[in-house]
């Protein structure tokens, strides 16, 4: 082998590498997310990809909304004519932490085999395990292209504080989508919020995108084990039960009793969601939470909420629901305390069944077009 040949190989290799890297800088790497093996080679996922322990859960968290939807069963083809399509939007409670897909609210509603307006009710789990109305809005905005007949939006006070809107990693890493929502709906959020991550040119090169690209690739590879096992999260035999004893802390996101400051809550984002749904009916659900009986439970309902703040928020919701003619279900205390698992909003399968019964009643009362 001639030394010049070796030198040329190295030089050409480096030049090609940098050229490809720079060219990739001009592309939109997020668009790659639309290319998916799910719903083609692998079964579509029953809920969004999310998880930390990938080797055990065959799942992972990523911020590419295109890829998340492309991996979801909702993207698995045209909507059948005989399907009454219901989408569920919400947090980890809707997503189903510690629950198998068939045990979630979605799974239990599908198992009920309901029909509405002469069509088979088919429910899709679009919950994602972070609490933020802006995240919900982003998911809803994307999900509407799948032609839902009904949106069920489960939420809780914790999704409302302004400071929770943009800090969720999936929101922070989708600044362009948030900008779009802000401008379309005049959201009370700032596009200059430092929580929003705005990639520079180098971040969008092949090197800058290596983590995102690797995640996309890993998501496809884990499609094998998802399809083969139906497992998409870890189910520990033991977990720490939700806290029921608390100290005397009654602060809520820096707010002191007795008055919950509505101006610090993102009702504007919430109402934008209702406008976004347009003609599609929306059932709003104040999701069940643990009402604990323990130390200082006269001050706090649970780990998330001091009583004063939560009670005032419920009143605000009721007033706005009545004024706006919302289809609003306040199910905050319908689940017994022993049906909560590792947090004040995560339910056992039996708890989900109770909730499903209540939500199904509301769904069946929908009028047909």
């Amino acid at each position, binding site marked *: *082998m001639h030394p010049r*040949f070796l030198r040329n190989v190295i030089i050409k290799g480096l030049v090609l590498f940098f050229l490809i890297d720079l060219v990739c800088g001009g592309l939109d790497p997020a668009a790659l997310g639309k290319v998916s093996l799910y719903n083609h080679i692998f079964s579509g996922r029953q809920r969004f990809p999310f998880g930390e322990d990938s080797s055990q859960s065959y799942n992972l968290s990523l911020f590419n909304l295109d890829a998340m939807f492309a991996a979801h069963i909702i993207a698995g083809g045209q909507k059948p004519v005989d399907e009454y399509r219901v989408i569920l939007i919400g947090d980890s409670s809707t997503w189903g932490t510690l629950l198998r897909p068939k045990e979630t609210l979605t799974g239990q509603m599908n198992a009920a085999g309901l029909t509405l307006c002469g069509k088979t009710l088919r429910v899709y789990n679009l919950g994602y395990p972070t609490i933020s109305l802006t995240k919900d809005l982003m998911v809803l905005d994307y999900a509407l292209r799948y032609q839902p007949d009904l949106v069920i939006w489960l939420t809780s006070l914790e999704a409302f504080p302004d400071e929770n809107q943009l800090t969720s990693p999936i929101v922070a890493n989708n600044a362009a989508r948030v900008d779009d929502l802000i401008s379309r709906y005049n959201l009370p959020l700032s596009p200059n919020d430092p929580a929003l991550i705005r990639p520079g040119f180098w971040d969008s090169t092949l090197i800058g995108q290596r983590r995102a690209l690797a995640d996309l690739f890993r998501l496809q590879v884990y499609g094998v084990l998802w399809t083969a096992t139906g497992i998409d999260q870890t189910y520990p035999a033991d977990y720490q039960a939700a806290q029921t004893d608390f100290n005397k802390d009654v602060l809520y996101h820096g707010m002191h009793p007795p008055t919950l400051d509505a101006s610090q809550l993102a009702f504007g984002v919430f109402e934008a969601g209702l406008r976004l749904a347009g003609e599609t009916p929306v059932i709003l659900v104040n999701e069940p939470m643990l009402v604990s009986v323990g130390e200082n439970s006269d001050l706090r309902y649970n780990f998330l909420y001091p009583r004063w703040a939560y009670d005032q928020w419920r009143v605000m919701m009721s007033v706005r629901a009545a004024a706006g003619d919302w289809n609003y279900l306040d199910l905050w205390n319908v689940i017994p305390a022993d049906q909560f698992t590792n947090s004040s909003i995560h339910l056992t399968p039996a708890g989900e069944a109770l909730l499903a019964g209540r939500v199904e009643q509301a769904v069946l009362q929908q009028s047909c077009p």
Partner: protein
Amino acid sequence: MTLALILVSILVATTLGLVVRNRGRLPLLLGICTLAVYAFQPVLPVRSLDFWLPTGTLALATLAWVLTTPQEQRSWRVNWPAAVILIGIVLVLGLTRFLGFSVYLTASRPPQTLQILAALAVVTLIAFLLTRFTKPGRAILTGAFVLIILLFIILKVPTLATLVSMGLRRLNQQATSLALAQDLRWLGFSYIAFRLLHTIRDRQSGRLPVVSLSEYVVYVIFFPGLTAGPIDRIERFVGDLRRPLTLTTDDLGESGKRLVLGLFKKFVIADVLSMIALNATNALQVHLAGWAWVLLYAYAFQLYFDFSGYTDIAIGLGRLLGIKLPENFNAPYLKPNLTQFWNNWHMTLTQWFRAYFFNPVTRALRSGKKPLPIPVVIFITQLGTMVLIGLWHGVTVNFFVWGLWHGLGLFFHNRWSELTRPRFATLSPRWQKALNVGGILVTFNFVAIGWVFFALPNLSISVNYLRVLFGLA
């Protein structure tokens, strides 16, 4: 081995090969290999064991050299630099415990200096006594051989390893209830043991060349092949070592190619396949035959790409240092029968067993007063060889069954080919080709099914998985 360690190894080998060349090559190589034994050793939960095991490797190599070297060749005058390097490095590494920061050369903080000094004194004293009062006779070499086998058994039998770990934990006043067989993960011991056994057996048969302490220790702990082989032969290795290092662009090109290929195989292909490869957890979660086969094939290819990737890296590194390590894999999954598969999978291991077990046992069974019939000899030797290869991976029922599976496969293939060879020889080339393709498919699947026992921890999970594979679950 981590990517970072491999990249550092490439940097070190390139520097040695290009910059240092022949100036002090052997002592430098000895020093670097010695450091690598410590640097590559993973952290162990038993206190200081990750320092003592590499030290044990060096002690074993040194004592094995003394035992396998003719008395007149054990000259202090020739070998003192090697002894000084070995002792010096152990001492210096031991002294790093007094630095306020980690030097990344030892897995954890080294033990007390006094303990290290005492251990070095004991090893030196034993080496001195052996040098002075022994010669490489049959009895002492057999003793050494048995001792290494015993050590091997202790490490590879989970119950024994756990007991030893409990003992060590007790000595260190650590919780004995936490003792596990994995506590004794002695980096590269499987390969080191094979090299030591090879030199001991060759000394017994008079085939071992005379080598210096430096050459012997570098052969045993040559860092590119420390963790995953290949198992070289000492006469070939030392031949390369004694040849002046003249790195040509061919060497650089070949080395670069093998390194890039090895890194790609290991860190891209094998690591991706490992995400979906069969393991003890997913074996219990899969219930459909089709997907069970996918996981099994992923495991088969992951194993191949991981192992052959490491071999490529070792060969590439060796080439930079002027050592042409032997090949270990030659497209084994594309071989049309099991015999050819084993001639091309982990070749240096099978060659080792052929030289030190299969051939001698065959000779013994054939040369007795009443020689056994050939099929019986083949049955005994092939089954014996493969069961031993299985147990080399770990003394467990599953590895035993894996060895049995391959031993029986080899025996049946041998008999089948005896029967059919004359008939197949007359077939047209097209039929020959079809037979070849069919043979590849059958062989690959036979090997893949065998991996079920290799990948899974016990027989009940393995049998259950086989039922899933064949739709019987």
